[in-house]
Protein backbone atom coordinates (compact mmCIF):
# COMPACT_ATOMS: atom_id res chain seq x y z
CA UNK A 1 0.00 0.00 0.00
CA UNK A 2 2.74 2.39 1.04
CA UNK A 3 4.94 1.49 -1.87
CA UNK A 4 2.00 1.95 -4.19
CA UNK A 5 1.06 5.44 -3.03
CA UNK A 6 4.70 6.53 -3.23
CA UNK A 7 4.91 5.06 -6.71
CA UNK A 8 1.73 6.79 -7.85
CA UNK A 9 3.00 10.10 -6.49
CA UNK A 10 6.32 9.64 -8.23
CA UNK A 11 4.54 8.98 -11.53
CA UNK A 12 2.29 11.98 -11.07
CA UNK A 13 5.32 14.13 -10.35
CA UNK A 14 7.06 12.89 -13.47
CA UNK A 15 3.93 13.60 -15.50
CA UNK A 16 3.63 17.15 -14.15
CA UNK A 17 7.31 17.75 -14.85
CA UNK A 18 6.89 16.66 -18.45
CA UNK A 19 3.80 18.80 -18.87
CA UNK A 20 5.57 21.72 -17.23
CA UNK A 21 8.47 21.45 -19.67
CA UNK A 22 6.46 20.94 -22.85
CA UNK A 23 3.02 22.52 -22.55
CA UNK A 24 2.65 25.58 -24.74
CA UNK A 25 6.32 25.57 -25.71
CA UNK A 26 7.03 27.34 -28.96
CA UNK A 27 10.24 28.10 -30.79
CA UNK A 28 13.77 27.14 -29.99
CA UNK A 29 13.84 23.99 -27.85
CA UNK A 30 17.30 24.67 -26.50
CA UNK A 31 16.11 27.89 -25.00
CA UNK A 32 12.84 26.46 -23.71
CA UNK A 33 14.49 23.51 -22.01
CA UNK A 34 17.18 25.70 -20.49
CA UNK A 35 14.76 28.37 -19.29
CA UNK A 36 12.10 26.06 -17.92
CA UNK A 37 14.57 23.50 -16.63
CA UNK A 38 16.07 26.05 -14.31
CA UNK A 39 12.66 26.93 -12.96
CA UNK A 40 11.74 23.28 -12.56
CA UNK A 41 14.91 22.55 -10.62
CA UNK A 42 14.19 25.44 -8.26
CA UNK A 43 10.61 24.25 -7.72
CA UNK A 44 11.76 20.72 -6.92
CA UNK A 45 14.50 21.86 -4.53
CA UNK A 46 12.12 24.17 -2.69
CA UNK A 47 9.46 21.48 -2.49
CA UNK A 48 11.81 18.91 -0.99
CA UNK A 49 13.39 21.39 1.41
CA UNK A 50 10.14 22.86 2.71
CA UNK A 51 8.35 19.54 3.12
CA UNK A 52 11.25 17.87 4.93
CA UNK A 53 11.70 20.89 7.19
CA UNK A 54 8.02 20.70 8.13
CA UNK A 55 8.15 16.97 8.86
CA UNK A 56 11.17 17.41 11.13
CA UNK A 57 9.69 20.41 12.86
CA UNK A 58 6.40 18.63 13.52
CA UNK A 59 8.22 15.65 14.97
CA UNK A 60 10.45 17.56 17.34
CA UNK A 61 7.63 19.82 18.49
CA UNK A 62 5.30 16.80 18.82
CA UNK A 63 2.58 18.64 16.99
CA UNK A 64 1.00 18.03 13.63
CA UNK A 65 -0.34 21.45 12.83
CA UNK A 66 2.79 23.52 13.14
CA UNK A 67 5.06 24.64 10.38
CA UNK A 68 8.30 26.58 10.65
CA UNK A 69 7.13 29.28 8.28
CA UNK A 70 4.10 30.60 10.15
CA UNK A 71 6.63 31.82 12.67
CA UNK A 72 7.81 35.02 11.08
CA UNK A 73 10.59 33.59 8.94
CA UNK A 74 9.54 35.21 5.67
CA UNK A 75 9.10 38.54 7.40
CA UNK A 76 12.59 38.37 8.87
CA UNK A 77 13.93 37.70 5.40
CA UNK A 78 12.24 40.81 3.98
CA UNK A 79 13.43 42.86 6.92
CA UNK A 80 17.02 41.80 6.35
CA UNK A 81 16.84 42.84 2.69
CA UNK A 82 15.26 46.16 3.64
CA UNK A 83 17.85 46.87 6.32
CA UNK A 84 20.75 46.09 4.02
CA UNK A 85 19.40 48.28 1.23
CA UNK A 86 18.69 51.03 3.73
CA UNK A 87 22.17 51.00 5.21
CA UNK A 88 24.30 50.61 2.08
CA UNK A 89 21.93 51.76 -0.67
CA UNK A 90 20.54 49.90 -3.67
CA UNK A 91 23.73 50.36 -5.69
CA UNK A 92 25.79 48.88 -2.90
CA UNK A 93 23.32 46.03 -2.51
CA UNK A 94 23.41 45.20 -6.19
CA UNK A 95 27.21 45.31 -6.17
CA UNK A 96 27.47 42.70 -3.46
CA UNK A 97 28.21 39.33 -5.01
CA UNK A 98 24.99 37.32 -4.96
CA UNK A 99 26.73 34.36 -3.34
CA UNK A 100 27.78 36.55 -0.47
CA UNK A 101 24.24 37.87 -0.02
CA UNK A 102 22.95 34.33 -0.13
CA UNK A 103 25.29 33.05 2.54
CA UNK A 104 24.78 36.10 4.72
CA UNK A 105 21.03 35.50 4.53
CA UNK A 106 21.37 31.85 5.34
CA UNK A 107 23.58 32.39 8.35
CA UNK A 108 21.36 35.17 9.72
CA UNK A 109 18.22 33.09 9.25
CA UNK A 110 19.80 30.07 10.90
CA UNK A 111 20.86 32.22 13.84
CA UNK A 112 17.38 33.67 14.19
CA UNK A 113 15.78 30.25 13.91
CA UNK A 114 17.96 28.80 16.62
CA UNK A 115 17.17 31.67 18.97
CA UNK A 116 13.46 31.58 18.20
CA UNK A 117 12.91 27.83 18.17
CA UNK A 118 15.63 27.09 20.67
CA UNK A 119 13.44 28.30 23.51
CA UNK A 120 10.80 25.83 22.40
CA UNK A 121 12.82 22.83 23.40
CA UNK A 122 11.79 21.00 26.51
CA UNK A 123 8.80 23.14 27.38
CA UNK A 124 5.25 22.04 27.79
CA UNK A 125 2.21 22.69 25.72
CA UNK A 126 1.02 26.09 26.87
CA UNK A 127 4.49 27.37 26.34
CA UNK A 128 4.47 25.94 22.86
CA UNK A 129 1.38 27.97 22.05
CA UNK A 130 3.03 31.02 23.52
CA UNK A 131 6.06 30.29 21.39
CA UNK A 132 3.98 30.13 18.21
CA UNK A 133 2.19 33.36 19.08
CA UNK A 134 5.52 34.99 19.78
CA UNK A 135 6.72 33.90 16.37
CA UNK A 136 3.65 35.30 14.64
CA UNK A 137 3.88 38.57 16.51
CA UNK A 138 7.55 38.85 15.66
CA UNK A 139 6.38 38.40 12.07
CA UNK A 140 4.05 41.40 12.45
CA UNK A 141 6.83 43.40 14.08
CA UNK A 142 9.31 42.58 11.30
CA UNK A 143 6.73 43.42 8.64
CA UNK A 144 5.91 46.76 10.25
CA UNK A 145 9.60 47.59 10.62
CA UNK A 146 10.17 46.72 6.95
CA UNK A 147 7.34 48.94 5.83
CA UNK A 148 8.70 51.66 8.12
CA UNK A 149 12.02 51.37 6.28
CA UNK A 150 10.25 51.36 2.92
CA UNK A 151 8.95 54.79 3.78
CA UNK A 152 12.40 56.03 4.66
CA UNK A 153 14.15 55.14 1.39
CA UNK A 154 14.04 56.28 -2.23
CA UNK A 155 11.43 54.84 -4.57
CA UNK A 156 14.17 53.58 -6.88
CA UNK A 157 15.83 51.75 -4.03
CA UNK A 158 12.46 50.39 -3.01
CA UNK A 159 12.25 48.65 -6.39
CA UNK A 160 15.32 46.61 -5.43
CA UNK A 161 13.65 45.50 -2.23
CA UNK A 162 10.42 44.64 -3.98
CA UNK A 163 12.15 42.42 -6.50
CA UNK A 164 13.90 40.63 -3.67
CA UNK A 165 11.04 40.11 -1.28
CA UNK A 166 8.37 38.11 -3.10
CA UNK A 167 8.41 34.42 -3.85
CA UNK A 168 9.79 34.36 -7.36
CA UNK A 169 10.08 31.29 -9.52
CA UNK A 170 10.58 33.14 -12.77
CA UNK A 171 14.11 34.35 -12.43
CA UNK A 172 16.62 32.21 -10.66
CA UNK A 173 20.33 32.82 -10.40
CA UNK A 174 22.21 29.78 -11.73
CA UNK A 175 25.06 29.92 -9.21
CA UNK A 176 22.64 30.12 -6.32
CA UNK A 177 20.75 27.19 -7.77
CA UNK A 178 23.89 25.03 -7.64
CA UNK A 179 24.76 26.14 -4.13
CA UNK A 180 21.27 25.52 -2.81
CA UNK A 181 21.05 22.19 -4.60
CA UNK A 182 24.26 21.12 -2.87
CA UNK A 183 23.21 22.40 0.56
CA UNK A 184 19.75 20.86 0.25
CA UNK A 185 21.21 17.54 -0.80
CA UNK A 186 23.57 17.39 2.17
CA UNK A 187 20.85 18.41 4.63
CA UNK A 188 18.32 16.03 3.17
CA UNK A 189 20.67 13.09 3.41
CA UNK A 190 21.47 13.99 7.02
CA UNK A 191 17.73 14.07 7.75
CA UNK A 192 17.33 10.74 6.00
CA UNK A 193 19.97 9.24 8.25
CA UNK A 194 18.05 10.48 11.26
CA UNK A 195 14.80 8.87 10.14
CA UNK A 196 14.83 5.99 12.67
CA UNK A 197 15.72 8.26 15.58
CA UNK A 198 12.90 10.54 14.51
CA UNK A 199 10.50 7.58 14.58
CA UNK A 200 11.56 6.97 18.17
CA UNK A 201 11.02 10.63 19.06
CA UNK A 202 7.56 10.32 17.54
CA UNK A 203 6.64 7.82 20.27
CA UNK A 204 6.77 10.58 22.84
CA UNK A 205 9.68 12.11 24.70
CA UNK A 206 9.42 9.95 27.84
CA UNK A 207 9.27 6.80 25.76
CA UNK A 208 12.20 7.95 23.65
CA UNK A 209 14.26 8.67 26.75
CA UNK A 210 13.40 5.23 28.10
CA UNK A 211 14.57 3.71 24.86
CA UNK A 212 17.93 5.40 25.30
CA UNK A 213 17.49 8.27 22.87
CA UNK A 214 19.12 11.59 23.84
CA UNK A 215 15.99 13.68 23.21
CA UNK A 216 17.29 17.21 23.74
CA UNK A 217 20.37 16.64 21.60
CA UNK A 218 18.36 15.06 18.81
CA UNK A 219 15.93 17.98 18.89
CA UNK A 220 18.78 20.45 18.53
CA UNK A 221 20.27 18.56 15.60
CA UNK A 222 16.92 18.40 13.83
CA UNK A 223 16.36 22.08 14.54
CA UNK A 224 19.62 23.01 12.85
CA UNK A 225 18.61 20.96 9.80
CA UNK A 226 15.20 22.68 9.75
CA UNK A 227 16.81 26.09 9.95
CA UNK A 228 19.15 25.34 7.05
CA UNK A 229 16.36 23.95 4.87
CA UNK A 230 13.99 26.84 5.50
CA UNK A 231 16.75 29.38 5.04
CA UNK A 232 17.83 27.84 1.74
CA UNK A 233 14.35 27.79 0.29
CA UNK A 234 13.55 31.31 1.49
CA UNK A 235 16.82 32.69 0.18
CA UNK A 236 16.35 30.93 -3.15
CA UNK A 237 12.78 31.85 -4.05
CA UNK A 238 11.43 33.96 -1.19
CA UNK A 239 8.67 33.11 1.24
CA UNK A 240 6.09 30.34 0.68
CA UNK A 241 4.11 30.26 3.89
CA UNK A 242 1.69 27.36 4.03
CA UNK A 243 3.23 24.97 1.51
CA UNK A 244 4.87 22.74 4.11
CA UNK A 245 1.74 22.34 6.21
CA UNK A 246 -0.39 21.62 3.16
CA UNK A 247 1.79 18.89 1.70
CA UNK A 248 2.65 17.17 4.98
CA UNK A 249 -1.05 17.06 5.91
CA UNK A 250 -1.85 15.52 2.53
CA UNK A 251 0.94 12.99 3.00
CA UNK A 252 -0.42 12.04 6.42
CA UNK A 253 -3.88 11.60 4.90
CA UNK A 254 -2.62 9.36 2.12
CA UNK A 255 -0.50 7.22 4.35
CA UNK A 256 -1.51 7.38 8.02
CA UNK A 257 1.37 5.07 8.78
CA UNK A 258 3.93 7.40 10.21
CA UNK A 259 7.45 6.09 9.85
CA UNK A 260 9.70 8.82 8.61
CA UNK A 261 11.17 6.52 5.98
CA UNK A 262 7.80 6.84 4.20
CA UNK A 263 6.74 10.27 5.30
CA UNK A 264 9.81 12.21 4.20
CA UNK A 265 9.94 11.05 0.56
CA UNK A 266 6.15 11.04 0.21
CA UNK A 267 5.78 14.65 1.36
CA UNK A 268 8.67 15.71 -0.84
CA UNK A 269 6.96 14.09 -3.85
CA UNK A 270 3.64 15.74 -3.02
CA UNK A 271 5.34 19.09 -2.57
CA UNK A 272 6.88 18.67 -6.01
CA UNK A 273 3.49 17.83 -7.51
CA UNK A 274 1.76 20.78 -5.83
CA UNK A 275 4.41 23.25 -6.96
CA UNK A 276 5.05 21.98 -10.48
CA UNK A 277 1.49 21.03 -11.41
CA UNK A 278 0.15 24.12 -9.65
CA UNK A 279 2.49 26.37 -11.57
CA UNK A 280 1.64 24.61 -14.86
CA UNK A 281 -2.10 24.83 -14.32
CA UNK A 282 -1.96 28.41 -13.12
CA UNK A 283 0.28 29.68 -15.90
CA UNK A 284 -0.58 27.62 -18.95
CA UNK A 285 -4.08 26.24 -18.46
CA UNK A 286 -5.88 29.01 -16.58
CA UNK A 287 -3.61 31.77 -17.79
CA UNK A 288 -3.78 33.48 -14.40
CA UNK A 289 -1.32 36.10 -13.31
CA UNK A 290 -1.77 35.52 -9.57
CA UNK A 291 1.38 34.13 -7.97
CA UNK A 292 1.15 30.50 -6.91
CA UNK A 293 2.14 31.45 -3.39
CA UNK A 294 -1.13 33.34 -2.87
CA UNK A 295 -3.18 30.32 -3.91
CA UNK A 296 -1.13 27.99 -1.72
CA UNK A 297 -1.59 30.31 1.23
CA UNK A 298 -5.31 30.31 0.74
CA UNK A 299 -5.68 26.55 0.39
CA UNK A 300 -3.08 25.82 3.06
CA UNK A 301 -4.83 28.11 5.51
CA UNK A 302 -8.07 26.22 4.98
CA UNK A 303 -6.33 22.90 5.53
CA UNK A 304 -4.93 24.26 8.76
CA UNK A 305 -8.32 25.33 10.07
CA UNK A 306 -10.04 22.06 9.13
CA UNK A 307 -7.28 20.07 10.81
CA UNK A 308 -7.60 22.16 13.90
CA UNK A 309 -11.37 21.82 14.10
CA UNK A 310 -11.56 18.18 13.20
CA UNK A 311 -8.97 16.79 15.52
CA UNK A 312 -8.93 19.47 18.14
CA UNK A 313 -5.68 20.54 19.66
CA UNK A 314 -3.24 17.69 19.93
Amino acid at each position, binding site marked *: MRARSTLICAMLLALSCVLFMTLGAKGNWDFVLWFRGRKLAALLIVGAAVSTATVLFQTISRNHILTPS*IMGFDALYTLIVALVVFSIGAAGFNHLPSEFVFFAHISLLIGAALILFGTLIGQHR*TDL*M*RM*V*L*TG*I*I*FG*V*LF*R*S*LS*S*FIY*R*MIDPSEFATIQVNSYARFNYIDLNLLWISAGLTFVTLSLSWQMRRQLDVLGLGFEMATNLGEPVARRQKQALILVAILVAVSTALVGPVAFLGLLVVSIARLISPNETHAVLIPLSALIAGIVLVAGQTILERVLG*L*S*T*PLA*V*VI*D*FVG*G*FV*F*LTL*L*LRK*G*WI
Partner: protein
Amino acid sequence: MQRHSTALFLAVGILVLAAISVFVGVISLRPETVFHDRDALGLVLDSRLPRTFATLIAGAALAVCGMIMQMLVRNRFVEPMTAGTGQGAALGILVVTLFLPGASIFVKMSLATATALVSSLGFLLIVRRLPPSQPLLVPLVAILYGGIIGAGVTFVAYQADMLQFIDTWLNGDFSGVMRGRYELLWIAAVVAALTYLIADQFAIVGLGREASVNLGLNYDQVMILGLLAVSVVSALTVITVGAIPFVGLIVPNIISRRCGDNLRATLPLTALCGAMLVLSSDIVGRIVRYPFEIPVGTILGVLGAGVFLWLLYSGPKHAR
Protein backbone atom coordinates in the same frame (compact mmCIF):
# COMPACT_ATOMS: atom_id res chain seq x y z
CA MET B 1 -11.24 57.94 42.59
CA GLN B 2 -8.21 56.78 40.66
CA ARG B 3 -10.48 56.21 37.69
CA HIS B 4 -11.62 59.82 37.66
CA SER B 5 -8.10 61.15 37.80
CA THR B 6 -7.08 58.83 34.94
CA ALA B 7 -10.01 60.04 32.87
CA LEU B 8 -9.11 63.66 33.62
CA PHE B 9 -5.49 63.05 32.70
CA LEU B 10 -6.49 61.37 29.42
CA ALA B 11 -8.94 64.12 28.50
CA VAL B 12 -6.35 66.86 29.09
CA GLY B 13 -3.77 64.87 27.16
CA ILE B 14 -6.14 64.51 24.22
CA LEU B 15 -6.88 68.24 24.19
CA VAL B 16 -3.16 69.09 24.14
CA LEU B 17 -2.42 66.50 21.44
CA ALA B 18 -5.38 67.66 19.36
CA ALA B 19 -4.04 71.21 19.48
CA ILE B 20 -0.60 69.96 18.38
CA SER B 21 -2.21 67.86 15.64
CA VAL B 22 -3.97 70.93 14.21
CA PHE B 23 -0.68 72.81 13.92
CA VAL B 24 1.55 70.01 12.59
CA GLY B 25 1.69 69.63 8.84
CA VAL B 26 3.46 70.54 5.64
CA ILE B 27 2.00 74.05 5.42
CA SER B 28 3.22 75.86 8.49
CA LEU B 29 0.50 77.40 10.56
CA ARG B 30 0.71 79.70 13.54
CA PRO B 31 -2.01 79.96 16.13
CA GLU B 32 -2.25 83.74 15.89
CA THR B 33 -2.82 83.79 12.11
CA VAL B 34 -5.83 81.44 12.17
CA PHE B 35 -8.28 84.12 13.16
CA HIS B 36 -7.43 86.83 10.62
CA ASP B 37 -5.99 84.85 7.68
CA ARG B 38 -8.72 83.25 5.54
CA ASP B 39 -6.32 80.74 3.93
CA ALA B 40 -5.18 79.55 7.30
CA LEU B 41 -8.74 79.20 8.52
CA GLY B 42 -9.64 77.25 5.37
CA LEU B 43 -6.69 74.93 5.94
CA VAL B 44 -7.77 74.25 9.48
CA LEU B 45 -11.41 73.63 8.56
CA ASP B 46 -10.76 71.56 5.42
CA SER B 47 -7.84 69.42 6.43
CA ARG B 48 -6.40 69.72 9.92
CA LEU B 49 -9.59 69.57 11.97
CA PRO B 50 -11.15 66.71 9.95
CA ARG B 51 -7.94 64.76 10.29
CA THR B 52 -7.82 65.29 14.02
CA PHE B 53 -11.46 64.28 14.40
CA ALA B 54 -10.95 61.21 12.21
CA THR B 55 -8.02 59.98 14.31
CA LEU B 56 -9.90 60.58 17.54
CA ILE B 57 -13.07 58.83 16.35
CA ALA B 58 -11.27 55.88 14.77
CA GLY B 59 -9.13 55.37 17.85
CA ALA B 60 -12.00 55.59 20.32
CA ALA B 61 -14.42 53.45 18.29
CA LEU B 62 -11.88 50.73 17.54
CA ALA B 63 -10.77 50.51 21.15
CA VAL B 64 -14.39 50.16 22.29
CA CYS B 65 -15.00 47.50 19.64
CA GLY B 66 -11.90 45.63 20.71
CA MET B 67 -13.18 45.58 24.28
CA ILE B 68 -16.60 44.30 23.15
CA MET B 69 -15.09 41.66 20.89
CA GLN B 70 -12.89 40.43 23.74
CA MET B 71 -15.97 40.12 25.91
CA LEU B 72 -17.92 38.24 23.23
CA VAL B 73 -15.11 35.80 22.48
CA ARG B 74 -14.01 35.68 26.11
CA ASN B 75 -10.38 35.99 25.21
CA ARG B 76 -7.98 38.84 25.88
CA PHE B 77 -5.78 38.35 22.83
CA VAL B 78 -8.35 39.03 20.10
CA GLU B 79 -9.23 42.17 18.19
CA PRO B 80 -11.53 42.82 15.18
CA MET B 81 -8.86 43.97 12.73
CA THR B 82 -6.84 40.76 12.90
CA ALA B 83 -9.73 38.33 13.45
CA GLY B 84 -11.31 38.55 10.04
CA THR B 85 -13.73 41.46 10.58
CA GLY B 86 -11.49 44.04 8.93
CA GLN B 87 -10.55 41.67 6.10
CA GLY B 88 -14.21 40.78 5.63
CA ALA B 89 -15.02 44.46 5.23
CA ALA B 90 -12.24 44.85 2.66
CA LEU B 91 -13.66 41.85 0.76
CA GLY B 92 -17.08 43.52 0.69
CA ILE B 93 -15.68 46.80 -0.62
CA LEU B 94 -13.68 44.92 -3.25
CA VAL B 95 -16.75 43.03 -4.46
CA VAL B 96 -18.83 46.21 -4.70
CA THR B 97 -16.07 48.03 -6.53
CA LEU B 98 -15.72 45.17 -9.00
CA PHE B 99 -19.36 44.41 -9.74
CA LEU B 100 -21.18 47.65 -8.97
CA PRO B 101 -18.60 50.33 -9.74
CA GLY B 102 -21.19 53.11 -9.67
CA ALA B 103 -22.77 52.13 -6.37
CA SER B 104 -23.45 54.86 -3.86
CA ILE B 105 -21.41 55.07 -0.70
CA PHE B 106 -24.29 53.70 1.34
CA VAL B 107 -24.52 50.56 -0.77
CA LYS B 108 -20.78 50.11 -0.29
CA MET B 109 -21.08 50.70 3.39
CA SER B 110 -23.92 48.26 3.94
CA LEU B 111 -22.33 45.52 1.86
CA ALA B 112 -19.00 45.94 3.64
CA THR B 113 -20.82 45.78 6.96
CA ALA B 114 -22.63 42.63 5.85
CA THR B 115 -19.45 40.82 4.82
CA ALA B 116 -17.71 41.97 7.99
CA LEU B 117 -20.62 40.59 10.00
CA VAL B 118 -20.58 37.26 8.20
CA SER B 119 -16.86 36.79 8.66
CA SER B 120 -16.99 37.69 12.35
CA LEU B 121 -19.89 35.25 12.79
CA GLY B 122 -17.75 32.59 11.14
CA PHE B 123 -14.95 33.37 13.54
CA LEU B 124 -17.27 33.07 16.51
CA LEU B 125 -18.53 29.70 15.32
CA ILE B 126 -14.96 28.44 15.00
CA VAL B 127 -13.95 29.78 18.40
CA ARG B 128 -16.89 28.04 20.03
CA ARG B 129 -15.47 24.70 18.95
CA LEU B 130 -12.04 25.30 20.42
CA PRO B 131 -11.25 23.77 23.80
CA PRO B 132 -11.56 26.41 26.55
CA SER B 133 -8.47 25.01 28.24
CA GLN B 134 -6.27 26.49 25.51
CA PRO B 135 -6.69 30.27 25.67
CA LEU B 136 -3.74 30.96 23.41
CA LEU B 137 -5.27 28.89 20.62
CA VAL B 138 -7.93 31.55 20.01
CA PRO B 139 -5.61 34.34 18.85
CA LEU B 140 -3.66 31.85 16.75
CA VAL B 141 -6.83 30.79 14.95
CA ALA B 142 -7.90 34.44 14.71
CA ILE B 143 -4.70 35.46 12.97
CA LEU B 144 -4.86 32.52 10.55
CA TYR B 145 -8.56 33.07 9.86
CA GLY B 146 -7.88 36.72 9.08
CA GLY B 147 -4.95 35.63 6.94
CA ILE B 148 -7.10 33.27 4.87
CA ILE B 149 -9.70 35.94 4.13
CA GLY B 150 -6.85 38.34 3.42
CA ALA B 151 -5.32 35.87 0.94
CA GLY B 152 -8.72 35.58 -0.76
CA VAL B 153 -8.91 39.36 -1.07
CA THR B 154 -5.37 39.48 -2.47
CA PHE B 155 -6.22 36.80 -5.01
CA VAL B 156 -9.30 38.61 -6.35
CA ALA B 157 -7.47 41.92 -6.33
CA TYR B 158 -4.49 40.47 -8.18
CA GLN B 159 -6.76 39.14 -10.92
CA ALA B 160 -8.56 42.45 -11.23
CA ASP B 161 -5.37 44.51 -11.05
CA MET B 162 -6.56 46.26 -7.92
CA LEU B 163 -3.73 45.44 -5.57
CA GLN B 164 -3.04 49.09 -4.98
CA PHE B 165 -6.62 49.85 -3.98
CA ILE B 166 -6.55 46.96 -1.55
CA ASP B 167 -3.45 48.39 -0.01
CA THR B 168 -5.26 51.59 0.93
CA TRP B 169 -7.95 49.60 2.74
CA LEU B 170 -5.68 47.16 4.48
CA ASN B 171 -3.19 49.75 5.71
CA GLY B 172 -4.72 52.52 7.74
CA ASP B 173 -3.57 56.01 6.89
CA PHE B 174 -5.05 59.39 7.76
CA SER B 175 -3.22 61.47 5.16
CA GLY B 176 -6.20 61.38 2.76
CA VAL B 177 -8.71 62.68 5.28
CA MET B 178 -10.37 65.97 4.22
CA ARG B 179 -13.66 67.66 4.85
CA GLY B 180 -16.34 65.79 2.89
CA ARG B 181 -14.43 62.50 2.86
CA TYR B 182 -14.49 61.26 6.40
CA GLU B 183 -17.98 62.10 7.65
CA LEU B 184 -19.05 58.44 7.61
CA LEU B 185 -16.81 58.00 10.62
CA TRP B 186 -19.28 59.98 12.69
CA ILE B 187 -21.72 57.08 12.26
CA ALA B 188 -19.05 54.81 13.74
CA ALA B 189 -18.73 57.26 16.62
CA VAL B 190 -22.49 57.15 17.22
CA VAL B 191 -22.54 53.34 17.11
CA ALA B 192 -19.64 53.11 19.53
CA ALA B 193 -21.34 55.58 21.84
CA LEU B 194 -24.61 53.61 21.69
CA THR B 195 -22.86 50.46 22.94
CA TYR B 196 -22.43 52.26 26.23
CA LEU B 197 -26.19 51.87 26.80
CA ILE B 198 -25.76 48.10 27.17
CA ALA B 199 -22.19 48.13 28.47
CA ASP B 200 -23.17 46.19 31.58
CA GLN B 201 -24.77 43.48 29.46
CA PHE B 202 -21.53 43.03 27.52
CA ALA B 203 -19.72 42.69 30.83
CA ILE B 204 -22.12 39.87 31.77
CA VAL B 205 -21.66 38.16 28.40
CA GLY B 206 -17.97 38.10 29.26
CA LEU B 207 -18.81 35.73 32.14
CA GLY B 208 -19.91 33.05 29.68
CA ARG B 209 -23.15 31.71 28.35
CA GLU B 210 -24.38 29.85 31.40
CA ALA B 211 -23.68 32.63 33.85
CA SER B 212 -25.41 35.13 31.54
CA VAL B 213 -28.53 33.01 31.10
CA ASN B 214 -28.66 32.42 34.85
CA LEU B 215 -28.56 36.17 35.38
CA GLY B 216 -31.57 36.54 33.06
CA LEU B 217 -29.73 37.97 30.07
CA ASN B 218 -30.92 37.44 26.52
CA TYR B 219 -27.54 36.02 25.57
CA ASP B 220 -27.99 35.63 21.80
CA GLN B 221 -29.49 39.08 21.40
CA VAL B 222 -26.61 40.81 23.19
CA MET B 223 -24.17 38.69 21.22
CA ILE B 224 -25.68 39.77 17.91
CA LEU B 225 -25.91 43.42 18.94
CA GLY B 226 -22.24 43.31 19.89
CA LEU B 227 -21.19 41.68 16.64
CA LEU B 228 -23.27 44.19 14.70
CA ALA B 229 -21.61 47.14 16.45
CA VAL B 230 -18.14 45.67 15.90
CA SER B 231 -18.88 45.02 12.21
CA VAL B 232 -20.33 48.47 11.52
CA VAL B 233 -17.43 50.26 13.15
CA SER B 234 -14.82 48.06 11.43
CA ALA B 235 -16.44 48.43 8.02
CA LEU B 236 -16.71 52.21 8.31
CA THR B 237 -13.13 52.53 9.47
CA VAL B 238 -11.86 50.34 6.64
CA ILE B 239 -13.86 52.34 4.06
CA THR B 240 -12.77 55.77 5.22
CA VAL B 241 -9.20 55.37 6.50
CA GLY B 242 -8.25 51.69 6.17
CA ALA B 243 -7.62 48.99 8.73
CA ILE B 244 -5.80 50.14 11.85
CA PRO B 245 -4.26 47.23 13.73
CA PHE B 246 -3.67 46.69 17.45
CA VAL B 247 -5.70 49.58 18.91
CA GLY B 248 -8.50 47.17 19.75
CA LEU B 249 -6.00 44.84 21.35
CA ILE B 250 -3.67 46.97 23.43
CA VAL B 251 -6.07 49.51 24.87
CA PRO B 252 -8.67 47.10 26.32
CA ASN B 253 -5.90 45.01 27.84
CA ILE B 254 -4.25 47.95 29.56
CA ILE B 255 -7.56 49.34 30.78
CA SER B 256 -8.81 46.04 32.12
CA ARG B 257 -5.51 45.42 33.91
CA ARG B 258 -5.61 48.77 35.63
CA CYS B 259 -9.31 49.30 36.19
CA GLY B 260 -11.02 45.90 36.01
CA ASP B 261 -13.87 44.68 33.86
CA ASN B 262 -16.84 46.76 34.91
CA LEU B 263 -17.53 47.99 31.40
CA ARG B 264 -19.97 50.67 32.44
CA ALA B 265 -17.13 52.36 34.27
CA THR B 266 -14.25 51.46 31.97
CA LEU B 267 -15.73 51.83 28.48
CA PRO B 268 -15.34 55.66 28.47
CA LEU B 269 -11.75 55.25 29.64
CA THR B 270 -11.16 52.74 26.85
CA ALA B 271 -12.47 55.21 24.29
CA LEU B 272 -10.31 58.06 25.62
CA CYS B 273 -7.21 55.90 25.76
CA GLY B 274 -7.76 54.57 22.20
CA ALA B 275 -8.27 58.09 20.86
CA MET B 276 -5.10 59.26 22.55
CA LEU B 277 -3.05 56.31 21.25
CA VAL B 278 -4.09 56.74 17.63
CA LEU B 279 -3.77 60.52 17.72
CA SER B 280 -0.25 60.38 19.16
CA SER B 281 0.83 57.67 16.67
CA ASP B 282 -0.52 59.81 13.84
CA ILE B 283 1.39 62.86 15.07
CA VAL B 284 4.58 60.79 15.41
CA GLY B 285 4.05 59.46 11.88
CA ARG B 286 3.78 63.01 10.59
CA ILE B 287 6.90 64.26 12.36
CA VAL B 288 9.43 61.44 11.97
CA ARG B 289 10.01 61.83 8.25
CA TYR B 290 8.80 65.40 7.78
CA PRO B 291 7.57 66.52 5.21
CA PHE B 292 6.64 62.93 4.24
CA GLU B 293 4.38 60.73 6.31
CA ILE B 294 4.52 57.27 7.79
CA PRO B 295 1.10 55.59 7.99
CA VAL B 296 -0.35 55.24 11.43
CA GLY B 297 -0.78 51.49 10.87
CA THR B 298 2.99 51.05 10.62
CA ILE B 299 3.71 52.99 13.78
CA LEU B 300 1.02 51.07 15.65
CA GLY B 301 2.32 47.78 14.22
CA VAL B 302 5.73 48.35 15.78
CA LEU B 303 4.33 49.68 19.05
CA GLY B 304 1.56 47.10 19.24
CA ALA B 305 3.78 44.09 18.60
CA GLY B 306 6.00 45.20 21.46
CA VAL B 307 3.08 45.64 23.85
CA PHE B 308 1.56 42.33 22.78
CA LEU B 309 4.78 40.49 23.58
CA TRP B 310 4.88 42.20 26.94
CA LEU B 311 1.30 41.09 27.64
CA LEU B 312 2.15 37.58 26.58
CA TYR B 313 5.15 37.25 28.89
CA SER B 314 4.24 39.40 31.85
CA GLY B 315 2.54 36.62 33.76
CA PRO B 316 -1.03 35.35 33.75
CA LYS B 317 -2.50 37.99 36.06
CA HIS B 318 -5.49 39.04 33.98
CA ALA B 319 -4.32 38.16 30.55
CA ARG B 320 -5.59 34.61 30.48
